[in-house]
């Protein structure tokens, strides 16, 4: 009987099924997609973590290590097979060799060692030494604590370790060696510690550790356990955290030591996961709410459509529970069918979204939360069916057969609750200002768009019948029969309220989603453009700043395509570049810089033109003239150089002042023999010799400079001089006193260089390329945003910055910015100039990255699902209007029989439907735009708050107009078709039937 009934009402049943499937699918998409997004987050966190943050180094000195590691990794399918190893450390048996040695065996070591000479050790007692150790094949190394016994001898002697191969020190960052420093990071010989000696596993079994000296360590076993990002999923996060907790506990409770920076990685994962979870949950909740609304209306329609049957059941004396069950049977069966279909549809949709929006290889899983969300969405239908069935089962049965069903007044309780909650959420949103935490504290505020859509729709549903009733009064006298009938019907409002609520809410959410999507996409593009600096940023291996500039000059002689850039993190940040080139490639917005365009701004960053003092050779000589030094005082003259490849000044003492002047010379630092060093300052240190009376003062003047190179002294051109403490001194003189030392500097840079200042920099010193925070900048241009700057920061001339700095700190990031999107030719040209390209990031990549963060993912979910829900709401409304109008077929037939013309009836039907759907759509539009105005800028768009550039949150009118226009066009077309269909069904013959 149930199936027959469903077939009898197949159109409505199909609509109910469809309307039930979509919210279930929408609700299920969120957890499935979130699971994929979480997988992306944890994988990215692992990939971007330093080597130590990608796994654990489990070390133990007692017992067998394999079972311990097996216990540690139990259940973790995301780790690679552990790499086992062992090591022992000892000093050399050679008294002259003070270096500490570490003898290491690690499974698979030979595949990771680059042999320079010889071979990899294969037998006990064989080792492979580092090229930096000075050892050669055939050498024998003896370590103090590593002993062995000759065959037949009971005496332990230092074990001979024969060098059978020499390797080139590998990359310390190679994950294979993680957790230990086996090679000198600089690849240079060390006085205290030799690079590791790699041996065969068997060496351990033929040697004995007998030492206990400081810094020595007996054989220990270790295992390297690495997380494989390709096998890691979001659901592994708790287990990963458990493993880290176990690792930390193991170090406290056992002899094992577990080294890892996984805790940092986990913190990153948790932070990013937090920004995803709440927005996604809120989107799902809003969609489930909307789905409930749709289901409430549609399932109610289905139950009401069975009203005559239910009335018959009551007429035949069926008990109330039986009647209720009878009324529930069909909708519940449909909902039951909708659950698997909806979940399957959700899985398919989420798979498509994951494939399209997330990195390749992210699996689509089906988390239990998806089922829960699907069931939660279904619950709305179940409640609707239960409530409708109960209402039909308990209302006076004779109502079913009345010609004019009595209207039941709609209560205000639900409206009041929704409006109160909306007001609370809105207040919270407006009072809280910008929500910087996307992880849940302001969940109520983030739900405001959905609540506002519902609230405005509820108000519109109240206003429309009242307004129609008022207009209906006017049409009594003029306007014709069509508007009269239409307005009367709308004012009666049997379908009006429900349709306006559903349409208004769905279109409200859809409008908000589209508005938010356009505004957020624009914000993403804007942030990406500024943060990347230019359309494409090519990161290269650090070189000297001058080399970077020269390479870019050579790769792009015209200067129109590329600009060299060095970025220094810090507070404030520093970005330096060639202003002329930057003006042609960087992103800029004059509105954010007081109307100044990029070329004008760059022109405010002049490059220095004074020559720098470069010296190259063995010795440096200063010819000085100075006044007589006060008695019992001595002054040592010093010269400081900037040496290529080193951060910080290297100072040499030229000698103690004597007499009235003369030549003072000293060896230049060793590297200056190979590459030019830059003279950065000359000053003197004053020392008291015994007891002194009164102060000391001496005035020194540099008369000339020479450098000894290839056995001959060569003059060094005198630069323009500057003394910071006394700007009047420009002749190469400086004063030395016990109250203050003056420093003589070549005037090669501005003391307070010009910069484009972004944000709250104030009087703070900028980091400089050497990260010394040694100078401030003069704000030449103040801007709200500048290329490459993500917070408070300064953009300045590269040459200036290079001249000021003593080297380049390792934190500096070297980039070449270009406005090209295809960078292969430029990269090749840079490579030809000796630059090593590390990575290439396009602004579009950054933009896509923002879209893949939690808020972006949640917004995408909202957009897709809200649009689908809006289409469904439209379909449901048209169906409801059609059903309601069909019920009035008798009335329409009577009107026709009484002489009403078909055009008037057509107009009446069309107007009735158009008024309802247009009101619902426009209410949605208003609600969506108001919600966008209130929420955008307050609801997080980024996982990390963006400091600069300022975000305009501009809603693009075209997409919103397109959606609204399409919705209105579709609704009016549907209204037109439905009116025509209904009109054709109106026949005077129907009057022979008693009205149903």
């Amino acid at each position, binding site marked *: *009987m149930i199936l*027959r*009934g469903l*077939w*009898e009402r197949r159109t409505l049943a199909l609509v109910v099924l469809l309307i039930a499937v979509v919210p279930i699918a929408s609700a299920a998409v969120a957890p499935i997609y979130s699971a994929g997004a979480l997988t992306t987050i944890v994988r990215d966190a692992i990939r971007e973590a330093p080597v130590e943050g990608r796994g654990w180094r489990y070390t133990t000195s007692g017992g067998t290590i394999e079972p311990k590691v097996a216990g540690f990794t139990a259940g973790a399918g995301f780790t690679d097979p552990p790499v086992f190893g062992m090591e022992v450390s000892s000093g050399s048996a050679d008294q002259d060799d003070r270096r500490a040695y570490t003898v290491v065996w690690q499974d698979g070591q030979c595949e990771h060692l680059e042999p320079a000479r010889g071979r990899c050790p294969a037998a006990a007692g064989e080792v492979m030494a580092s090229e930096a150790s000075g050892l050669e094949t055939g050498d024998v190394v003896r370590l103090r604590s590593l002993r062995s016994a000759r065959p037949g001898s009971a005496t332990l002697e230092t074990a001979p370790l024969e060098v059978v191969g020499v390797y080139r020190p590998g990359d310390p960052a190679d994950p294979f060696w993680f957790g230990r420093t086996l090679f000198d990071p600089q690849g240079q010989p060390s006085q205290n510690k030799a690079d590791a000696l790699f041996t065969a596993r068997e060496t351990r079994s033929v040697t004995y550790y007998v030492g206990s000296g400081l810094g020595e360590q007996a054989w220990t076993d270790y295992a390297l356990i690495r997380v494989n990002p390709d096998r890691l999923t979001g659901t592994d996060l708790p287990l990963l955290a458990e493993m880290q907790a176990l690792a930390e506990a193991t170090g406290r409770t056992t002899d094992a030591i577990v080294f890892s920076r996984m805790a940092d990685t986990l913190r990153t994962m948790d932070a990013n996961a937090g920004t995803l979870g709440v927005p996604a949950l809120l989107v799902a909740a809003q969609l489930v709410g909307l789905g409930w609304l749709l289901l409430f209306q549609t399932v109610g329609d289905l139950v009401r459509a069975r009203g*005559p*049957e239910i009335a*018959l*059941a*009551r*007429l*035949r*004396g*069926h*008990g*109330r529970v*039986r009647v209720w069950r009878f009324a529930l049977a069909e909708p519940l069966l449909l909902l039951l069918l909708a659950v698997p279909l909806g979940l399957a549809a959700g899985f398919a949709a989420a798979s498509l979204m994951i494939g399209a929006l997330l990195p390749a290889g992210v699996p689509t899983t089906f988390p239990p939360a998806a089922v829960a969300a699907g069931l939660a969405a279904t619950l709305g239908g179940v409640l609707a069916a239960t409530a409708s069935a109960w209402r039909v089962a308990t209302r*006076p*049965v*004779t109502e079913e*057969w009345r010609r004019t069903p*009595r209207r039941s007044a709609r209560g205000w309780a639900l409206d009041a609750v929704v409006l109160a909650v909306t007001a609370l959420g809105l207040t919270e949103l407006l009072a809280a200002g910008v929500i910087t935490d996307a992880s849940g504290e302001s969940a109520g505020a983030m739900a405001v768009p959905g609540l506002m859509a519902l609230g405005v729709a509820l108000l519109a549903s109240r206003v429309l019948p009242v307004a129609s009733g008022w207009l209906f009064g006017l049409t009594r006298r003029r306007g014709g029969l069509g508007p009269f009938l239409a307005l009367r019907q709308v004012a009666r409002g049997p379908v009006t309220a429900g349709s306006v609520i559903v349409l208004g809410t769905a279109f409200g959410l859809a409008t908000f989603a589209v508005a938010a999507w356009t505004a957020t996409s624009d914000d993403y593009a804007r942030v990406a453009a500024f943060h990347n600096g230019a359309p494409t940023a090519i990161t290269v291996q650090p070189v000297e700043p001058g080399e970077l500039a020269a390479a870019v000059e050579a790769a792009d002689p015209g200067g129109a395509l590329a600009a060299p850039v060095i970025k220094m993190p810090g507070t404030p940040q520093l970005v330096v570049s060639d202003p002329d080139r930057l003006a042609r490639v960087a992103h800029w917005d004059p509105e954010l810089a007081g109307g100044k365009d990029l070329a004008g701004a760059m022109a405010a960053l002049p490059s220095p033109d004074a020559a720098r003092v470069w010296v190259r050779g063995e010795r440096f000589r200063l010819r000085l003239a100075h006044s007589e030094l006060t008695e019992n005082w001595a002054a040592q003259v010093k010269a400081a150089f900037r040496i290529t490849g080193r951060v910080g000044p290297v100072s040499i003492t030229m000698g103690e002042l004597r007499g009235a002047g003369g030549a003072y010379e000293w060896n230049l630092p060793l590297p200056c023999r190979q590459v030019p060093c830059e003279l950065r300052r000359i000053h003197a240190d004053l020392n008291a010799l015994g007891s002194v009376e009164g102060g000391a003062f001496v005035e020194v003047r540099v008369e000339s400079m020479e450098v000894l190179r290839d056995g001959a002294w060569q003059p060094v051109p005198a630069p323009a001089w500057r003394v910071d403490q006394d700007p009047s001194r420009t002749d190469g003189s400086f004063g030395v006193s016990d109250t203050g030392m003056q420093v003589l500097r070549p005037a090669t840079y501005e003391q307070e260089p010009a910069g484009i200042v972004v944000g709250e920099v104030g009087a703070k010193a900028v980091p400089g390329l050497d990260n010394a925070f040694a100078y401030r900048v003069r704000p030449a241009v103040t801007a709200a945003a500048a290329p490459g700057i993500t917070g408070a920061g300064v953009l300045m001339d590269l040459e200036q910055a290079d001249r000021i700095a003593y080297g380049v700190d390792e934190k500096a990031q070297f980039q070449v910015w270009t406005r090209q999107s295809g960078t292969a030719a430029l990269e090749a040209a840079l490579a030809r100039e000796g630059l090593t390209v590390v990575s290439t990031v396009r602004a579009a990549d950054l933009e896509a990255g923002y879209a893949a963060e939690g808020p972006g993912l949640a917004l995408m979910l909202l957009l897709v699902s809200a649009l689908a829900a809006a289409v469904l709401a439209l379909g449901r409304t048209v169906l409801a209007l059609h059903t309601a109008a069909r019920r009035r077929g008798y009335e329409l037939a009577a009107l026709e029989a009484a002489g009403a013309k078909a055009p008037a009836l057509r107009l009446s039907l069309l107007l009735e439907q158009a008024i309802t759907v247009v009101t619902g759509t426009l209410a949605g539009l208003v609600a969506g735009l108001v919600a966008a105005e209130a929420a955008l800028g307050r609801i997080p768009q980024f996982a990390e708050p963006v400091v600069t550039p300022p975000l305009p949150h501009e809603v693009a009118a075209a997409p919103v107009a397109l959606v609204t226009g399409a919705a209105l066009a579709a609704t009016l077309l549907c209204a037109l078709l439905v009116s025509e269909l209904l009109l054709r069904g109106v026949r005077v013959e129907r009057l*022979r*039937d*008693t009205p*149903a």
Partner: protein
Amino acid sequence: MSMVRCDGIVQIYRAQDVEVVALRDVDLVIDPGETVALLGPSGAGKSTLLWLLAGLLRPSAGRLWLDGTDVGRLDQRGLDRLRASRIGVVLQNPSRNLIGYLPAAQNVAFAQRAVKRDRRRVRDLLARVGLEDVGDRPAGGMSGGEQQRLALAVALANSPRLLLADEPTSQLDAGSGQRVIDLIKESAEAEGTTAVVVTHDPGVSEALGRTVTIRDGRVGAEGRHGEDFVVVGREGAVQVPPEYHHLLPPGSMARIEAVEDGVVLRRVEP
């Protein structure tokens, strides 16, 4: 014991802010096995009285006994049980009585669900109303006459002691209508069923044993054995039948003259 006893029944509908008195002080007794035609103009309260007798409405005032049971003392469950086991109803418009997509037998069986499934009775009933050969044809596809006969079979599904029918012949041709009336009478005779039929059809009223005319919510007249009688109401009110309105039009004044077995009304001109 009477099958139906109405004692001062008042029924008031509340439509928005207006109260409509559908029945006022209706006193009516119907004995078991009687066949009664409820007559009266549209809006007089016939259908309301029928719904009251079906236990679908509870009277606003007065008391109603059905087959000896005081309806006012029954809870909803008791009322449902009473309706299921002892009352059969045929609604106006035959299609309303049926589930259109079910075949005839299932429609009858549906009515039996609340009491006891009796397939033999289903077959007997269908045979009695001449629908034994309709097979699995859905009720919605039957002719009006067939539907009305099936509706009667459905109403008789649980061997009710009281059969209520609202305009059972209104949409039927004369032949079909007569057949339906015959079936009602046959059921009353064969099973002792009391039948109350709301009708405008003089043919139906003539075919039944008694007529009760409702006017303005009151029992205005009764007819037995071909003769109509006015009914003196609780307050002594008597409704002058419309056919005498030209002699004593509404609003006119009359003098009451006592005679041996009653009173005589004579119009006076004040």
